[in-house]
């Protein structure tokens, strides 16, 4: 596999699930995986990862300055010795302050955009950000939203510019990169088709029995059980559980009509584009 694949998603859209599936399929012949040791690149906004490449503390520098270096870091990930250089990101595709694509074409093999119904995201994101559903909707509808973007504190992650849910999706849809879209709901409804298409995009030979095993052994409930017994390093340390319900359509019972309306109003075009009824 030459070149990096970006596994891009708005937070709480199923990115970890996709990586767990890929780890099982590519490395474990369809057997179970350790969610704390997925054999792919780290979240690219982790300061540890950025600092390693910079050779300096990103926290000692203005964010804008760090941002200037990031396209070069990303274009050089192709040098990594990972067997499958797949990197997770929640950031939107954008240009840095000096006009360079933060996810450059050089060194990129493609992007997998994981998409989920924003109404279900709102429910899950509220827990992830330790806020109310109202608060999550506010975040999802805020233009140029930055996760962990406080100016008086340093987090383990460099501020992630996700943008609003629609901005995030649009940015990747218009990125000049080879692209594949996988919907969270399809991973539930027709996992064979959803994951086969993903493997085809990643140019991985299809082995039906391994595919079946990987799907079975990385079902949401199994990941959730593993988190309950061993914990999950990838979660926000402020929350107890990363894996909550995992179902599609929980918004029907968890969101009020006005909350649904606020999301639909702001994201109507993309809801329709991705085939979500409203």
């Amino acid at each position, binding site marked *: 596999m030459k070149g990096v694949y970006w596994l891009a998603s708005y937070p709480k859209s199923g990115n970890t699930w996709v990586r767990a599936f890929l780890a099982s399929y590519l490395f474990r012949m369809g057997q179970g995986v350790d969610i704390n040791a997925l054999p792919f690149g780290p979240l690219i906004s982790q*300061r540890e990862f950025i600092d390693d*490449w910079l050779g300096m*503390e990103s926290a*000692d520098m*203005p964010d*804008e300055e760090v941002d200037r270096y990031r396209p070069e870091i990303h274009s050089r990930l192709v040098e990594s010795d990972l067997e499958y250089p797949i990197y997770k990101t929640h950031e939107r595709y954008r240009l840095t302050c000096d006009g360079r694509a933060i996810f450059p074409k050089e060194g990129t093999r493609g992007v997998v955009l994981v998409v989920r119904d924003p109404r279900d995201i709102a429910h899950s994101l509220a827990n992830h950000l330790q806020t109310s559903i109202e608060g999550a909707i506010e975040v999802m509808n805020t233009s140029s939203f930055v996760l962990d973007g406080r100016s008086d*504190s*340093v987090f383990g992650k460099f501020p992630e510019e996700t943008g609003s849910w629609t901005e995030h999706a649009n940015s990747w849809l218009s990125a000049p990169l080879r692209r594949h879209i996988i919907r969270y709901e399809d991973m539930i409804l027709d996992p064979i088709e959803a994951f086969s298409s993903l493997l085809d995009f990643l140019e991985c030979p299809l082995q039906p029995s391994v595919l079946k095993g990987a799907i079975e052994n990385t079902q949401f409930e199994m990941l959730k059980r593993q988190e309950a017994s061993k914990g999950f390093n990838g979660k926000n*340390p402020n929350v*107890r559980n990363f894996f909550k319900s995992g179902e599609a359509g929980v918004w029907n019972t968890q969101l009020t009509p006005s909350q649904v309306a606020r999301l639909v109003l702001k994201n109507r075009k993309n809801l329709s584009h991705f085939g979500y009824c409203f």
Partner: protein
Amino acid sequence: MLCDQNSTIMQHNLAYDLKIKSAIDLPELRSCFFEPSEADVIISERAVETIIAPTETGVAWRAKEGQFELYVKDVARFAVSGGNRIDVDYLAPGKEREARIFLFGSAFAALLHQRRYSVMHASSVLTSKGSILFCGLSGDGKSTLAAGFAQRGYSVLADDVTALKYMDDGTFWTPPAFPLSRLCGDVIEALKWPVSSCQPMALEGPKFETFQPTLPEEGAQPYCIVFLKPCVDEQVKFRKLSPIEAVESLVKRTYRYRFAVGMGFRESHYKQTIELAKTVSIFEVSRPIGIKHLNASIERIIEFVEGD
């Protein structure tokens, strides 16, 4: 200030138990007097040449056996070699203070690796039992914990980067580093840290550099190393790491590990890390994050150390 044999003005300082003879002003460091010939490290201002055929590179650094180079755009280029020499090449006027941030950070880390110290991403404090190292990622609260200990009368040996010297008798030693701490605005406010001593690290950056008056004259043997793990629970919990976990964690939290690899120290670093894991007690401390839990964390750690 003293003059060296070539009549260049040289300043004499001490950090990490190293006698440093510097042609550039290092006002943050502790001054001392020694014969020029006794210097362990010489810092000069001079043109720096790029390393040819590096074995390991990042986007702003290059390394090969015994050599290291760091390039900070519009600020300075640093060359570190032989464990005893740092050359600084300013790339613009008026960048001295900014350059010192990177000199005390990555350039010194490379130098300490070259001198075969175990360089940890850790803050450390001095207790009656020896030093305690707090290892963790950015944002895990290493500096905050150390500052909290300082406010309770403990001496801070190092902030953010702690070097452990492997002694001839097989033990380790934690030398005092720089009398500096780097704290975020929210921590400064919460701890009521004297604002007059704080200078922003960067324009619009969240961190401030502050003088750390508690730096002791002498270091200590490490008593224990703790790996900070943020968690949701209110309780502070200690867990002793198994030998394998301890070695893995120590390698993982080695400060600028790739520098050490690039300079050819992968194997020796690993061997030294195994010795460190054998010699020092190593724990994981799960604790709630957030400044409001700081006192509880400190009290629990003190209780754990004093009661041991």
